[in-house]
């Protein structure tokens, strides 16, 4: 592969404090805002790039465009009123918030959701993961100029949203996982219609394999680009597919099984190169795992049974003093809710641990210097980050 090697002596040098000395007055540097209105940015955030030629010498992540103060809002809502808010912390994969919150409340209130609810929750989380990966696939294709991948994936995601719609009564914010259980049973004939969606998805994914993963341009632009040194995983809090692409076989579904994952059969997907390609590939293969899991769940789950545990009157529900941290493996990595209760009817503190917080801020700022301006979008998308969970 031919790569342009710039004359690095022209680049700014670190000063005594280790920070780069960038003097814009020299005319050697250009400030460029990548986002918030840029198709290559994931969601509503921006990266302030300092360029020297077409190489990025510094990138600063700016967030705040989406800040709605979720965590503070939650402190001013009763325990049941928090339920419709949490899903909004993450648009593309909202269900993780619902489950984490519900599970945390259940733990502190001493409630156990019935078995039927546990299976339904697992099904929802896998459907959500599938959808989230659809966006990641489309995004990585789009960031590298392959818009059609995004169109295909959006279509497949829409089919899954149809299943969400008939199951939960909503397409995006499902609000189906309630503290105490889930809101209802699967509709009649759901498994059959789900199978149709999965079959269509597999057909389109096969096309993705041909058009994107078996593609000289895609390979040239992703292999060896945006490599994350596995030594950074721990200090930078890298989890999920981003870490698995670097050979770390960590997956909370396996390592700390929650819901009914211990009753399901699946392998943890890993790659070794830790570059954009490897991260895209881990996600691509994890979609297959999700599809297999959805099939397994629908085959194994109980056909009937209660979906809700008996709750106290939610209008004045008080939860004893306590704290808990509930985490699960979302499509982007470890997703967790830290909930503190003080015996009142309101959460004392809710802290959302979104994997994007570390991935899109510290890690991205670390990875950007030295990349080519054209690769920034692909690098960003390969980290698969969602800004709302940074700004909760």
């Amino acid at each position, binding site marked *: *592969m031919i790569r342009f090697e710039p004359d690095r002596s022209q680049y700014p040098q670190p000063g005594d404090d280790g920070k780069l000395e960038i003097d814009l007055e020299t005319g050697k540097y250009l400030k460029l805002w990548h986002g918030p209105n840029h198709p290559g940015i994931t969601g509503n955030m921006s990266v302030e790039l300092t360029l020297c030629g077409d190489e990025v010498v510094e990138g600063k992540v700016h967030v705040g465009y989406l800040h709605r103060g979720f965590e503070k809002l939650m402190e001013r*809502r*009763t325990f*049941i*009123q*928090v*339920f*419709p*808010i949490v899903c909004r912390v993450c648009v593309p994969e909202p269900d993780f918030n619902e489950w984490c919150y519900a599970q945390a409340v259940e733990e502190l209130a001493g409630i156990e959701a019935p078995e039927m609810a546990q299976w339904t929750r697992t099904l929802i989380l896998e459907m959500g993961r599938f959808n989230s990966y659809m966006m990641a696939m489309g995004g990585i294709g789009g960031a590298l100029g392959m818009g*059609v991948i995004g169109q*295909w994936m959006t*279509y497949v995601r829409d089919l899954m949203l*149809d299943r969400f*719609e*008939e*199951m*939960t*009564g*909503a397409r995006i*914010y499902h*609000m189906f996982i309630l503290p*105490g259980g889930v*809101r*209802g*049973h699967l*509709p009649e004939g759901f498994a059959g219609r789900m199978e149709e969606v999965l079959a269509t998805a597999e057909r389109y994914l096969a*096309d993705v394999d*041909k*058009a*994107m993963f*078996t*593609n*000289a*341009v895609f*390979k*040239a632009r992703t292999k060896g680009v945006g490599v994350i040194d596995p030594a950074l995983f721990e200090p930078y809090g890298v989890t999920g597919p981003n870490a698995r692409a670097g050979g770390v076989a960590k997956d909370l579904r396996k390592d700390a099984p929650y819901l009914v994952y211990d009753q399901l059969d699946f392998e943890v997907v890993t790659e070794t190169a830790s570059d954009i390609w490897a991260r895209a590939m881990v996600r691509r293969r994890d979609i297959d795992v999700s599809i297999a899991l959805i099939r397994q769940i629908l085959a194994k789950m109980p056909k009937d049974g*209660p*979906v*809700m545990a*008996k*709750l*106290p*009157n*939610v*209008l*004045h529900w008080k939860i004893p003093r306590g704290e808990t941290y509930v985490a699960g493996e979302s499509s982007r990595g470890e997703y967790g809710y830290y909930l503190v209760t003080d015996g009142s009817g309101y959460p004392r503190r809710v802290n959302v641990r979104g994997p994007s917080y570390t991935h899109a801020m510290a890690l991205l700022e670390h990875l950007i210097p030295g990349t080519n301006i054209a690769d920034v979008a692909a690098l960003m998308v390969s980290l698969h980050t969602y800004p709302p969970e940074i700004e909760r």
Partner: protein
Amino acid sequence: MGNLRDVLSPFTAWKHLIETPVTIRNPIGREAADGYRGFHQNDIEKCIGCGSCEVICQNAAIDMVPVSAPVDGDSGLRPKIDYGRCCWCALCVDVCMTGSLTMSNEYTWVDADPDAFRFIPGVDPKPWDDMEKGYRREGARVLTGAERVEMGELPPEARIDNFDEIVVGYTREQAMIEADRCVECGLCVATCPAHMDIPDYIAAIREGDYDLGLQILYETNPFSEVCGRVCTHKCETACAARHEGDPIAIRWLKRHIVDNVSEDRRLEIVGTPQALPTGRKVAIVGAGPAGLTAAYDLARQGHAVTVYEAQDKPGGMMRYGIPEYRLPYDALDRDIAVIAAQGVTIKTGVRIGREIAMDKLRGEFDAVVLSIGLHIGRSTRIPGTEGPGVEAAIDLLARITAGEEVPVPERVVVIGGGNVAMDIARSMARLQKRKHGAVGVTVTALEDFAHFLADREEIEESFDEGIEIVDARGPQEVVRYKSGKRKGAVKGLRTWAVTSIFDGQGRFAPQYDQGDERLHPADMVVEAIGQAADVSILGEDLTEALEWTRGRLAVDPAGRSSEPWLWAAGDAVHGPDVITAVADGHRVAASVGAMLMAMGEVAR
């Protein structure tokens, strides 16, 4: 470097060029899934305006707005929803106490006017009002409790030969669970004649703050021991929880509070009058719930109150009408002790009109409150009621309370279907069990079981105790032995089946099926068909001077009679129960107090 395959493979994507596009060309009109959470529907007849939807909405998208006049159990308010705020979470549907609020699966609606997206579902007509698809709450209501915590009772065999209290009261754990079910809608407050702050004292139970609970009780009712046991609990018939479950056991929760505050502590919490003595004097005739409530209020305003009671002990119908197994006398005494501690003088055994004339009261006091209750039993006046062996229920009950000897034959027939009929039937059953070892009581009521006047639990408990209740029977004659050794003694009650009680205009005009005649054998017949006030105590001149309506003393809404110094309260003017009398007592006390304040303090 990629190989040739990596170059050619992407071109396979071109095959999609010949596929049918997957885009939905016109999304307007696309039908959503069956269970979709679309625009709300509200069954306006079913909705009671409890406002639980408004409370649970975390976006404050719901306002309760008046659409009709409030009635018992319906606030007349209906939810108005702002779709600029609604997040379609459907918690309002899940929490709805009647199941009236649902969601259609309509999610597209075009209107150029932004204000159109704020409307009252069910009142402002919308195309999706009758849509059957959409979000419905699955299963029984899960967000608030539906089932009442069962109240422990003495089993029938343990209670039938004595007058021990039947209801054992809630434990703290039980009360906590029951109190938790309340949604604090306040429909009960509006319905309660005394407008007790029910949701607030239930909240105090949840907090375990019984002192606060007691304080709240005393703000509106000095008879919580009594009302916690025998209240007719209209509040529970208005309770939002009754629509999809059992109403909150408001009466038992009230009793639970007083059960948990000792008598001494009660006096500390309620305290004594803070107002300085005004020097004004009020006489109250009759120490029943209305009179004593008025006495409590007036004493706390600083007036000197004297209550005259004809019977040996205060309490009126609460003591002499309600059997001890429903309301133990010591419970009543505890309520009265707090009232007496306010400086109220209660003179028992003094019958106004005999020992002291009304004129004398008028001369000695600034105001007189008449709260004499209904202590004369009415008679059916059917043939055979004159003579021995026919008793008035109210007399018998009073004599049982006073510890007097009452006739206890082996077979008793009671005429009447109200709570007094049940009280005397069950009291007689206990006495029979003691004396004869067996219960032989038959209750004959005009009403059928579907329209029975007595409380449902009274009927059930009566059955448990072995009492026979025959519904829809009209009494025709008390049959007496015409000859033999028992000549003149009661033989039984002859009844006809009732076909209807009221005529087309709603007037009382019972119709009978004369072909269906029965003789209920009895040695004694007890009439429990209603009572009257003993207004003879007023004396001829005063009776002449006062205004009357249909045999009752006419009073204005504040309880004042046509004589400016005389007020009347309680069963004698309003009726029919303790809590109404308490409310009446408050009303009269406010009116009397206002007049006394206008008169000013007495110079000292």
